[in-house]
């Protein structure tokens, strides 16, 4: 038996909770992502305003510990809290995307976006591309008719 095998036998019950933790983070990923995005907005706004977390706590009428919890990026925010925070800080922290009709015209193209962008870009062809094609066709048609 190699030392590795001996060790694995001895240590099987002693592994840390690292894997469990990584899997737990993965499971909560969307919440962590949103919560962290909000926390970044709050922290950068505090920096702009030169406010401390304590000052924000006072304005929000909550404890400084509560504010510190918000900026860790691990909070399941209530809608009301986000709206109040946005109002006190003078920024928008939550927005529901407007519903737009899903019209895919022939002159639009969906393109892949870079790694850090969430939305799909829709690039519009320049109008003259379409006009040019039509022009050629009309000419050929006219030529046929003339023949």
């Amino acid at each position: 038996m190699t030392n590795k095998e001996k060790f694995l036998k001895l240590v099987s019950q002693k592994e840390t909770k690292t894997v469990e933790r990584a899997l737990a983070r993965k499971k909560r990923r969307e919440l962590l992502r949103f919560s962290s995005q909000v926390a970044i907005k709050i922290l950068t706004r505090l920096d702009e305003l030169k406010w401390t977390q304590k000052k924000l706590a006072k304005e929000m009428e909550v404890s400084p510990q509560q504010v510190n919890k918000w900026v860790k990026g691990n909070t399941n925010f209530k809608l009301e809290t986000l709206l109040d925070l946005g109002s006190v800080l003078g920024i928008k922290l939550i927005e529901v995307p407007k519903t737009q009709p899903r019209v895919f015209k022939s002159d639009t193209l969906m393109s892949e976006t870079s790694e850090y962008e969430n939305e799909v870009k829709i690039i519009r062809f320049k109008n003259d591309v379409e006009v040019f094609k039509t022009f050629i066709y009309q000419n050929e048609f006219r030529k046929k008719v003339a023949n």
Partner: protein
Amino acid sequence: MKIVPIFAQKLFAIQYEGEDENEYDRLLGLWGDTEYLVDFLLKNKRDIPDRRTLEEMANFLREDAFAIDDRLLEILEREDENLSFFFQPLHNQEYQTQVLSLQKGRRYYLRLYALKISEDIFLITGGAIKLTRTMQERRHTQKELDKLNAARDYLRDQDIFDEDSFFEFLIEEL
């Protein structure tokens, strides 16, 4: 200094004196703490690339930490992958693998630093947010380089030079 197995008995990490967690858990905890990330970026504003805002960088770092978790879970779950696909020599000019080679695992601006014990066994000694070209340029990355060297010296002192002697040492430490 304590060496603890963290992922499937292939990936090990050091738990330093006075720390509650091993280096992987400690770093992923830090990188998952938005207050820490923004504070780090505010203190290192001069190193943020010109084309990026602080807000963008904080979002990138969070996503990079998620990606490191995912990559390691993926490597350790799949038999056709091994840790050498994630870690690479710290010094780009290292063509021949040295005993206890200094390694880095990277995801854009995040780094995990490790010693290579064998092809699929690594020991994490620390990690950092690296915004500069070299580790020597900033105190926090220089500290990580020092930790790597100190860990290698420690293992050498314990006569660890390969996988077998590494596990022999761990058995003695149990």
